[in-house]
């Protein structure tokens, strides 16, 4: 376990002391600084319109739906492309630069290595989600917010970021080439969304249920709406555990080649 902590600390430092990470944070904040006020503005117009006409769906009048959920879907889109950029180096680069030799000949297990790197990646995702969270936070200066659903929604996106991190970490363990790792990661991240589409295409009731359960969007939207469902959490954590396990297998197998 101490091996996990050592690696976690080193990798976290590697993320947070790396200018690239701050460039990414900066870009994310640029995007939100541009989009978020527009959303707020639209929302306030909607409110004004509502006073005059009645035809607007009522959930659109909630700032949670009207502004924050939009922001979360943008954040999700960003994470799909940004998380692979963070994780791609974790294994691929180490293998290529042969620094992996050090880890494999140190008294740490493959699981220590994977967990240390995984939690570091998730820690980096936390930074990104936190940057995004600053926007709703600043809104609270202007309006009273309902904190619980907001926090649950952000926890949801943080979990999704954790799922991406697990899949992308696995992708990184598959190759020595960081670009290849990046591309495979994006495929993984996108495909888990496409599973949700399957739910709409499949005819049989059972098939639909299965797809729905495997779909990230079903579980995320529940969280985003502010409701915590156990099967949703179980789903997120099982995907994370599965991909960490797969990455551990790949690391372990590299000793046998």
């Amino acid at each position, binding site marked *: 376990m101490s091996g996990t902590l050592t690696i976690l600390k*080193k990798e976290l430092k590697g993320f947070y002391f790396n200018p690239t990470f701050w460039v990414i944070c900066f870009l994310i904040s640029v995007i939100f600084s541009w989009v978020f006020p527009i959303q707020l503005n639209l929302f306030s117009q909607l409110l004004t319109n509502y006073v005059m006409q009645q035809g607007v769906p009522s959930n659109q009048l909630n700032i949670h739906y009207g502004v924050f959920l939009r922001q979360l879907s943008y954040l999700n889109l960003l994470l799909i492309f940004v998380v692979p950029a963070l994780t791609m180096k974790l294994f691929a680069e180490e293998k290529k630069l*042969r620094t992996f030799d*050090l880890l494999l*000949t140190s008294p740490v297990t493959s699981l220590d290595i994977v967990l240390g790197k995984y939690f570091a990646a998730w820690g980096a995702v936390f930074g990104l989600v936190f940057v995004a969270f600053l926007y709703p936070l600043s809104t609270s200066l202007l309006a009273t917010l309902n904190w619980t659903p907001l926090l649950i929604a952000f926890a949801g996106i943080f979990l999704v970021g954790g799922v991406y991190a697990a899949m992308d970490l696995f992708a990184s363990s598959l190759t020595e080439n960081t670009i290849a790792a990046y591309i495979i990661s994006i495929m993984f991240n996108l495909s888990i969304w496409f599973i949700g589409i399957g739910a709409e295409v499949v005819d049989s009731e059972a098939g639909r249920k299965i797809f729905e359960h495997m779909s990230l969007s079903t579980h995320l939207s529940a969280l985003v709406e502010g409701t915590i469902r156990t099967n949703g959490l179980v789903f997120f954590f099982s995907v994370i555990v599965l991909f960490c396990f797969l990455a551990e297998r790949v690391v372990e197998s590299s000793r046998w*080649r």
Partner: protein
Amino acid sequence: MIQVSDLTKDYGPRRAIDKLSFSVNKGDVVGFLGPNGAGKSTTMKIITGFMAPSHGTASVAGFDVFENPIEVKKRIGYLPETPPVYADMYVREYLRYVAALKQVPKDKIEKYVDHAIEKTNLGEVQKRLIHHLSKGFKQRVGIAQAIVSDPEVLILDEPTVGLDPKQVAEIRDLIKALKGQHTIILSTHILPEVEATCEKVIIINKGRIVAEDSIHSLATMEKGHQRLHVRLRKDVSDLKSVLAGVSAVTSVTLGASQKEWSIDLAGGEDVVESISSLIVTQGFGLLELTPAKRDLEDVFLKLTYGQESKGGAV
């Protein structure tokens, strides 16, 4: 300390090492010698637990490398062919990280890092980014990370590659200083390195051990044969006929000019004495007469390439 038996490694259809067996006692310094592609690095990777062999076993300090890898790895410092350094870390920060990975107790880390930095002369670069270091300095950081946890066993794959002569000498001194308490295996192509640091050599070729002995007995394998280099003041057109009277002389070959010759002989010091007195009495102006240290080189080339060298530097 290190026991290797029947170690075999296949890379796909390619057999890199074939049934290697040897053992290294505690405190020994063993040189691993062999031409390119002989399987030196492969053997070292297996002993360090970096990868598993196809057959056979290896154990370090009584722990099997595959059944108890963590215990083995705690006791080993390993310098791979490419120093495993992170370009985006500072030298000191990196060494601290390695020490923590190697489970050095927290309160001792600084002391161990200081020690490793001092031993490898990294003091002036310890606050620099590894990315900005020259190749030789990276190699030194690589050596520093191998010794930072003060391991019982050191496995060094070509430790002095890319270092300047002064550093090479210092690393050799370091290795000599470490012997006794530490068990060291180092691989190299450089024979003087083995002669300078190791008591025992294992020569491998094409994945097999072709010789395993102490330096001394290997070097004297062809006992009584030696080569002399002589440098004269005057040009001598035919030294061979001059020395024809000494029966122990087997061959006389011309060096860079007619002032330099090498003499092969079968015999002891008395033969050397009679040769020198002969040259002196002829009045050629003997400036230098040195026994050439060609023994190990010859043994090496003969064993690995099956040919006898004509002397000269490697």
